[in-house]
């Protein structure tokens, strides 16, 4: 425990020092060093716990009414901490390159690095907090710090709006979370998660179901599940690349952590909870995936794919819940193991993709697909990192996304004897997952093809070149992780085994061991196949392209038909790539088209602008503005001095209060 407290203190101290009036470079140095040291200190206890050492608990005396603060580091928290901390550090390293031009200005960079430190502090609080107050406190630090990081470019109104949008959404989530905590507190008269768990596992019923729904809503908002995702694309597009990367890959995984934590506390979930999670997640994956197709802003596209990927992890958790409620250990191991592994894998490849997007932005100052092109030759490292991440995010072998999705598929097509209808329904879910995979392959091909291949579409943009080494290094490390976890997925499984065993703690030890061992075998096989595929591809490509007797190609122009292009703008665009597909889902993806057709004999000013907007956000805003008008109307019509109105309002209030009391207490004493 002491190491964790030490890590928190180091981070806070680093954050404080970052704010001193010193050179920006020194501030950044302090921030990075404190992050690195804190990560190493925390690792010294986190890694052993993750690999099976007993839990670490700690207490800290605190004043009434909060009472003593309890901390506990178990395998689940250790799993999340083990990669969240170093990835935040890497984000800091990336920030040095990304913020390069501000180092010599009067802009205070220390705040930025201090906030990154606070993000790490919030991880330590949330992932070890046993007391609700520390948990909520960490939750809130993360939300505020992330908000402040998002509005780095605050003079821009759009950025401020995106930040505010995020701030409001995350606090709506907090309301649901607090509501759930209040219900649990009235039942247990305790602040401790353990006591909550105790009560929940003994009292299945309406109230527990309500708590579950409230929590899923709150965590869904945090992790940007559909339909709670509308803040996400804006925030990701507005934030600096490393902040988007950290938010999408690392910070918002806290929602999934909390979800798994509460499932763990729940004991044995009801069957409907598993199905509910699966359906909720499938919808997220489908809609998130579909939305990636229409985007022309690369960072928005990647933002939507977060919604898709939390959905995929959520499907895994749903299978795990079903396994718990049916007492099928194999499903628990595959579901939770696969889901958690997907969380880890997503952190690796999503950060990598955002970092690549940041490199493009750094060099070209835009991330608009339709203006870029041909970057692969100028930025080969970025291009390779992007396509590796892209293949991984489409869950294709030989990279890591495939390993985790394979586990989830193994759960969906289980050989265990569960009901035929359940099997068929899971088969439908698998088909939906296959659809999502194909859709994300489509949008990654589109993004990579338009940005990195062909020729540059806009000559007014600066020349492309490779971005700074500070940015390439973190991206490269993530790419290595993506490849390693794909070829040796057992590494990832070793990290996931602890928390998965925790979720299976009610089952006999032998059963748990057998099932974990079988997942190890599955992943070893997948790793071997992925490795063999990667190796054979490498060998054949080397033999055909690079070896001594490889044929030397002749160079010539692209096949002339339709390409003897007078302007590179005539290349295939992102919009043309996606229009056909998007048109089939026009009810979900709202395509706004503004155009002015050429008219007259000498047409001049004509244009077509298409934009794929978020239908949830659109409807939300239209409902809010309608509601606003209705309320204004109503208040204008009402005469406030009318006693009948006052009495009926008072009566209605009494009825509502009575109903709430009845709902909370069952029957009146």
């Amino acid at each position: 425990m002491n190491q964790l407290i030490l890590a928190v203190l180091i981070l806070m101290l680093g954050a404080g020092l970052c704010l001193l009036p010193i050179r920006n470079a020194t501030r950044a140095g302090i921030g990075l060093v404190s992050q690195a040291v804190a990560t190493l200190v925390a690792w010294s206890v986190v890694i052993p716990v993750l690999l099976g050492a007993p839990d670490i608990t700690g207490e800290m005396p605190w004043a009434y009414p909060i009472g003593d603060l309890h901390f506990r580091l178990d395998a689940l928290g250790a799993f999340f901490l083990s990669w969240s901390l170093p990835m935040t550090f890497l984000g800091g390293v990336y920030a040095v390159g990304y913020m390069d031009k501000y180092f010599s200005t009067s802009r205070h960079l220390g705040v930025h690095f201090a906030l990154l430190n606070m993000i790490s502090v919030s991880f330590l609080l949330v992932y070890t907090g046993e007391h609700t107050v520390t948990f909520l406190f960490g939750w809130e630090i993360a939300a505020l710090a992330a908000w402040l990081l998002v509005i780095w470019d605050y003079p821009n109104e759009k950025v401020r709006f995106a930040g505010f949008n995020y701030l409001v959404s995350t606090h709506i989530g907090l309301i649901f979370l607090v509501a759930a905590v209040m219900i649990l507190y009235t039942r247990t008269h305790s602040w401790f998660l353990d006591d909550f768990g105790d009560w929940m596992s003994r009292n299945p019923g309406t109230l527990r179901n309500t708590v579950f729904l409230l929590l899923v809503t709150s965590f869904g908002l945090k992790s940007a599940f559909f339909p709670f995702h509308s803040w996400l694309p804006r925030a990701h597009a507005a934030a600096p690349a490393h902040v988007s990367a950290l938010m999408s890959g690392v910070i918002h995984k806290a929602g999934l952590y909390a979800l798994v934590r509460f499932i763990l506390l729940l004991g044995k979930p009801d069957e409907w909870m598993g199905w509910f999670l699966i359906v909720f997640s499938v919808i997220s994956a489908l809609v998130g995936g579909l939305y990636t197709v229409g985007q022309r802003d690369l960072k928005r596209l990647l933002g939507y794919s977060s919604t898709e990927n939390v959905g995929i992890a959520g499907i895994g958790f749903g299978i795990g819940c079903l396994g718990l409620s049916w007492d099928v250990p194999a499903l628990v191991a595959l579901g939770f193991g696969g889901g958690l592994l997907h969380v880890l894998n997503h952190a690796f490849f999503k950060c990598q993709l955002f970092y690549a997007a940041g490199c493009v932005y750094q060099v070209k100052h835009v991330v608009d697909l339709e203006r870029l092109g041909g970057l692969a030759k100028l930025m080969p490292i970025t291009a390779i990192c992007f396509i590796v991440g892209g293949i991984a995010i489409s869950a294709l072998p030989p990279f890591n996304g495939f390993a985790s999705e394979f586990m989830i598929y193994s759960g969906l097509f289980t050989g265990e004897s569960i009901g035929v209808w359940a099997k068929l329904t899971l088969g439908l879910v698998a088909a939906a997952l296959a659809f999502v995979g194909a859709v994300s392959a489509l949008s990654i091909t589109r993004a990579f093809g338009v940005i990195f291949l062909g020729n540059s579409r806009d000559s007014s943009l600066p020349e492309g070149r490779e971005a700074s080494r500070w940015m390439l290094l973190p991206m490269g490390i993530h790419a290595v992780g993506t490849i390693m976890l794909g070829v040796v997925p057992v590494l990832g499984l070793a990290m996931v085994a602890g928390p998965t065993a925790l979720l299976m703690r009610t089952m006999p030890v032998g059963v748990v061991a057998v099932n974990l061992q079988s997942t190890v075998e599955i992943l070893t096989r997948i790793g071997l196949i992925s490795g063999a595929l990667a190796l054979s591809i490498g060998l054949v490509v080397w033999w055909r392209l690079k070896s001594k007797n490889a044929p030397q190609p002749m160079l010539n122009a692209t096949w002339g038909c339709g390409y003897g292009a007078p302007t590179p703008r005539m290349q295939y665009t992102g919009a043309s790539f996606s229009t056909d597909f998007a048109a089939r889902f026009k009810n979900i993806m709202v395509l706004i088209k503004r155009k002015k057709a050429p008219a007259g004999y000498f047409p001049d000013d004509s244009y077509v602008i298409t934009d794929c907007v978020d239908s949830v956000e659109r409807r939300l805003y239209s409902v809010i503005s309608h509601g606003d008008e209705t309320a204004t109307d109503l208040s204008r019509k009402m005469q406030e001095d009318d006693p009948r109105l006052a009495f009926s309002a008072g009566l209605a209030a009494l009825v509502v209060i009575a109903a709430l009391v009845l709902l909370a207490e069952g029957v009146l004493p």
Partner: protein
Amino acid sequence: MNIGLALIHWAIVLSMPIMLVGLVNRTKSWWVGRKGPRLIQSAYDLWRLLGKRPVVSTTASPLFRAGAYVVLLCGLLAASMIPLLGQFAPLQFSHDFVVVAYTLGLARIVLMISAMDVGSSFEGMGAAREASFATFAEPALFLLIGTASAATGMTSFADLIGHLHNTPHYAIIVVPLTIALLILLQAEAARIPVDDPMTHLELTMIHEVMILDHSGPELAAMQYAAALKMTLYAGLIAALINPFNPLTDPVAGVLVSLALMLIVAVIVGCIESLSARLPMRWVPAYLLIASMAALGSMLVIGLGASGV
């Protein structure tokens, strides 16, 4: 593992692409009253291409040439897991069908990327069509597997297909499943009515337009990989229908499978001769028929198990 069967499996995988393409072309020639090319004509074509020096676009990156070999290798890896002969595949383990689908997915994404690499609008168009039609085709395969999985309780591809013959509703579900697989074959192997390999108008092509700029050995790899894909789906159809288990009855199993694959090629050729390509906008609806057929068989399994 049964080494003899594995050798036969590989012999079929390597030789049938040539034969099937030849047979489809022969059938089409026969319908229009020509004699048609030799059955192994495509082997000669591939051989000729292998000896040529490739011409590469100045716009292309190294991914362009590498892509062709990735596509071929992925096809071969998938071939080692697909039970062409029935209840047998050289590489067989639980949930291998996911690896099959996703390996072919990797081949597809690499094919699309190498198409977009040359910058031509036509090739981008082909890639966009391939990508969007794949999204409609992919679920059908998983629904089909879901049906077989629920019916048999098995987890590996070969067992799923093999044990399906012994399930009570086999006689009913074999029809929709065969239809689904045939539609998938037409989509994945770029045959009429989804795509027309013989067309010479870039605007209306899908697969051919994506490999417009490939030449020499790379073109050979792409063409062989496409033919291989057709073989794999034809083999799956054969395995679904073939009543002989290759493990207990190897001679009959292999011969019937071979015959069925050739019949599938003839059927594909007949369809190509007798019908025109669908308009692009109808293709998704056509592909949805495959999903619907698989869904229907799912329903049969579910209702059957409930005793209806």
